[in-house]
């Protein structure tokens, strides 16, 4: 049981890290997309 418990702690560490890495990448990607579309809009307004 104790061996499985230590494995479960490893899974906890790797699992939470994995989720935060994926979510972190998504956060950066969405922020970048948001800034890009904001710039495009500003460029469009300047043209008009």
């Amino acid at each position, binding site marked *: 049981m104790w061996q499985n418990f230590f494995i479960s702690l490893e899974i*906890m560490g790797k699992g939470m890290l994995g*989720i935060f890495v994926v*979510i972190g990448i998504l956060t950066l*990607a969405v922020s970048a997309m948001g800034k890009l579309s904001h710039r495009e809009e500003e460029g469009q307004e300047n043209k008009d």
Partner: protein
Amino acid sequence: MEFLWEGLLQITWQQAVMYGIGVLLIYLAVKKGYEPALLLPMGFGAILVNLPLSGVINQNVEGIGVVNGIIEWLFEVGIEASEALPILLFIGIGAMIDFGPLLSMPSMFLFGAGAQFGIFFALSTAVLLGFDLKDAASIGIIGAADGPTSILVSQVLHSKYVGAIAVAAYSYMALVPIVQPFAIRLVTTRKERRIRMDYTPGNVSKGMRIAFPILTTFLVGLVSPQSVALVGFLMFGNLIRECGVLGTLSDTAQNVLANLITLLLGLTISFSMRAEAFVNMDTLLIMGIGLIAFIFDSIGGVLLAKLLNLFRKKKVNPMIGAAGISAFPMSARVVQKMALEEDPGNIILMHAIGANVSGQIASVIAGGLIIGLVSAYL
């Protein structure tokens, strides 16, 4: 009348308990409105599969041989062979979700991640209570607060507790308005719960809404390939919704498809609620661990928000962290209600919704990660 008497005599006490559980689930669905679309079919199914020599499960009939039962067949085809039912349901769920509030406030993504902590805490708890690793992981995934993900993960890991896990997952999703306020109050002060947050959403273009499901599927697929079925179908449903040219399909996915699959999923999962598999101490333990999972999901999300507040000028109401579980939109509503109770006029609903839809993505990522990580140790 003799045959009726014989039928009655064949009922075991375990089957009688299952009739009681079936009636209880139907009562909770009808009278209390707890996840009625799932709990009612599961409750009725629990009665169907536990009738002596029930024709809805395979029976060996004297002189004829094996006669197939519809619920066992549905389980074998729709869940055991392909996990098709929970995966297809994700198309409907994806079509229902508006990721706009999350895309306009990308920082809310983080709370979806923090509120998955209960999954792993429950996994370790289950191991300490004597469950083997694959069953413990299947029980832990109750903390995803996402019924289809729970069913899928427990089935992929060949857990023998699929029925109990599904009942726990859907029951606690329905009990979010009771469980979450308790957990949130455990780790927040009144002052923290009164924190107000400005809502200044960024612009979300149509192109961004279309790119998001594609990008998410691609990124998640690269990092967590086991999540592709879940995330892919969720995002496919969302792409149908956001593309703007498939209005009828989007409508069908949100209503007809989701309703049909929900109807079948409830009945089908009742196959795993046969008395011999369900009536035991393990089921009670699973219900208890499921509650722990939901409590620590909420605590994980709140503590993450409090940690971020140490570094932020504009403080986040830490209750937003608890909304990072997948139970949508109930969790966001609970958090908003609590904010209003503490400080009338405190509107944090859009932030909570952002965290809540992030929880839907994070829970399927967690499901895929659990499958990948646990299978590496088996």
